């Protein structure tokens, strides 16, 4: 097993685009080669060693490589983008697009993650211990959001804190678990997969959803009128994870002839029926 540590040297004015910070790219490279990898800062190229102090050894394969980012990386974007295996541990906050389009492996963010974390993810685990921004597990314009790498293989995002707007936008498969609250439009356009929110949700959950499941254990401020009430269920089970109700069940979004399911904890959402 190899371990490479990156310690930010200084915080630049302009964010750095660093999709090269990935076990797939570090694997099999010497420290010197890793240091010479190119990153963009605005419209200029920089070397990775100009941005980070680099130490340790990379593994032979991505699966045998762990990358540790020490300190504040809130100005570094695209860490772990498209990675297929291995691990990245970020010991502070991280910039936009962390773990976007991941296809495997694991990323742990000990602080907060900025917008687009896990966007378009296909497999692997993204664990954010702080809060996440908008478009968590969402989609890039024109694409679908989270989807399966192959049948039964999909990504999982866990956020211990809160998340912003449009969580899981255009999601087709996969799982997003938020321990805190979410903003507006969670699951907008989703066609498959699961979103579980343990806290409260702002309005327009599931707008234009066609399929998939959203579970809200806290309070939903306002429900779209295009969801149809289908009665109560006592519990919901997703991938063996049981949540005790009773839940109010809704189906929608009927504006799209959608067949998505919305489970709202009855205790917190009696105002909606």
């Amino acid at each position, binding site marked *: 097993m190899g371990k490479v540590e990156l310690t930010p040297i200084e915080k630049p004015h302009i964010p750095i685009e660093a999709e090269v910070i990935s076990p797939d790219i570090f694997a099999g490279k010497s420290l010197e080669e890793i240091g010479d990898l190119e990153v963009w800062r605005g419209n200029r190229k920089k070397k990775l060693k100009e941005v980070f102090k680099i130490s340790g050894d990379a593994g032979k394969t991505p699966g045998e490589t762990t990358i540790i980012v020490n300190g504040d990386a809130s100005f570094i974007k695209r860490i772990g983008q498209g990675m297929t295996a291995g691990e990245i541990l970020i010991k502070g906050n991280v910039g936009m697009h962390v773990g976007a389009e991941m296809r495997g492996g694991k990323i742990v963010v000990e602080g907060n993650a900025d917008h687009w974390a896990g966007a378009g993810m296909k497999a692997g685990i993204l664990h954010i211990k702080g809060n996440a921004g908008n478009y968590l597990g969402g989609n890039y314009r024109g*694409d679908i959001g989270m989807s399966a790498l192959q049948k039964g293989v999909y990504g999982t995002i866990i956020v211990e804190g809160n998340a912003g707007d449009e969580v899981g936008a255009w999601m087709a498969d996969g799982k997003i678990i938020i321990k805190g609250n979410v903003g507006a439009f969670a699951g907008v356009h989703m066609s498959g997969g699961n979103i579980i929110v343990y806290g409260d949700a702002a309005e327009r959950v599931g707008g234009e959803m066609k399929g998939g499941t959203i579970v809200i254990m806290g309070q939903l401020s306002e429900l779209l009128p295009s969801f149809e009430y289908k009665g109560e269920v006592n519990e919901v089970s997703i991938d063996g994870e049981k949540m005790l109700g009773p839940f109010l069940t809704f189906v929608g979004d009927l504006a799209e002839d959608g067949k998505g399911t919305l489970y709202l904890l009855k205790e917190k959402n009696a105002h909606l029926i």
Partner: protein
Amino acid sequence: MNAYVLKGGHVYDPLNNIDGEKMDIYIAGGKIVEEPPKGAKVIDVSGKVVMPGGICIHSHIAGGKVNSGRMLRPEDHRRDNIPKKGQLRSGVGYTVPTTFVTGYRFAAMGYTTVFEPAVPPLKARHTHEEFQDTPILDHGGFVLTGNNWFVLNYVKNNEMDKLAAFIAWLLWATKCYAVKIVNPGGVESWGWGKNVNGLDDKVPYFDVTPREIVTALSYVNEKLGLPHTIHVHGNNLGQPGNYEITLETMEAVREIKASKGRRSVLHFTHIQFNAYAGTSWKDFASGAQEIANYVNKHDHVTIDIGQVIFGDATTMTADGPWEFALRQITRGNKWVNSDVELETGSGIVPYVFRRTVPVNAVQWAIGLELMLSVNDLYKVCLTTDHPNGGPFYFYPKIISWLVSRKARNEELEKVHKAAIEKTTLKDLDKEYNLYEVAIVTRAAQAKILGLKDRGHLGPGAKGDVAVYDIDPTKVNLSSSPELVEKAFSAAAYTFKDGEIVVKDGEVIATPQGSTIWVKVKKLEEMMPLIEEDLKEMWKHYTISLNNYPVQMEYLPKSEMVEV
């Protein structure tokens, strides 16, 4: 202006019967000249191939439809970023590149002239605006006519003089180069929720047929003596069994007399999409041999291919009903469909050609079958109908398939077996030489378009030259297709109007290209015939007649061809 001597290259200039001869080419004053010019810079191109600048007869590169395609496909751009570099602008691809990237990528392949084949008259200004922003390339537009209410009315009443006057006026008003017909009658029918499926089906209200529209426009086109023939996208495009209506359409204009200097009276475009046998998607098969047979026996038609490239494409055409059908086939893909007042329609649907899909595999093979089965290559142009069959910058890949049976067979092994079972591609052993490559990528295109000073390297021709880094005396094209692809992807030099614009595959200068368009000399004399009709019909337009014609300010470098 600089003068150059291109010294010692192997020159392929089919229109002047020069086949790989080692000779010098002289450029001065932006043109090819006969004698070595004084004070010329000598460039050693020995061991390299020299050809006239490439010409593309049919690529959708500019205008409202192309721009809608860009807006529809942000994901397309994200996969293909081109950063700013020196004086070059940043931009994006992949299937619908920005105007600047379009210019750079064509020029890098040694291309210098490209035609936009679908200009809705009302949107002509937009097309010209994008032409201005497409660097390096000379360009021209084909104006859509096959579903225009004026045309349908004149055909209905059999008023050929008025139709001729209207076409002459429309070319002037839109500053276009040729007459385009898309799904004749079908697009107007689509306005009524219908389509036409046979050459003798009637268009609602107007009561005219595709056969009448095509023959009338071909007749008028030749009567006016336009440099290019009518440029036809046939009926039933994309449908199994459509090779029959393709042949019927060709046959319909057989008796029409070509104007001076040409034998052809109809160009059938992206014919791959109209060369299908079978009766459904299940027994879908190639009709390429039937088409090639006809083209081999008749001189009144020319074709371009619309070769399929596996991967992402963006289909875009004035053929609104076909795009609706494609949207259904792709099970509700995102799409655009629009109506252009009294003139035409349009639609856009993203599409992916997959090696594993039998129909796609057959489509891929058909394009190559056609290119390998037509005997007289002056009747054939290499195109992908960019971005319908795939992006234009795959031309070098297609060239590698043409010169090498080995390259074709390698691809054939990767695709669905339907390409072997439902086409003749596997049995075709023809391999192009560089002379033939030069025909289908420049000489034939120039000849078919009626361009006099392009597509060849004779004295007086424009100084548009491509130099490719491949030595025909050392490289066996058939066994080294990858070297062919590499050389044609990145021209060693591209000269535009006598100046170097590309060196070692990199764009180093970005001059403004010329807009080539046709003016009928007798237009003023003909106008009284249609003036009343214009006024009467203009009641239905949303803009006034005075604001309709594109003014010359939109053509910073105008190249008017008078006929």
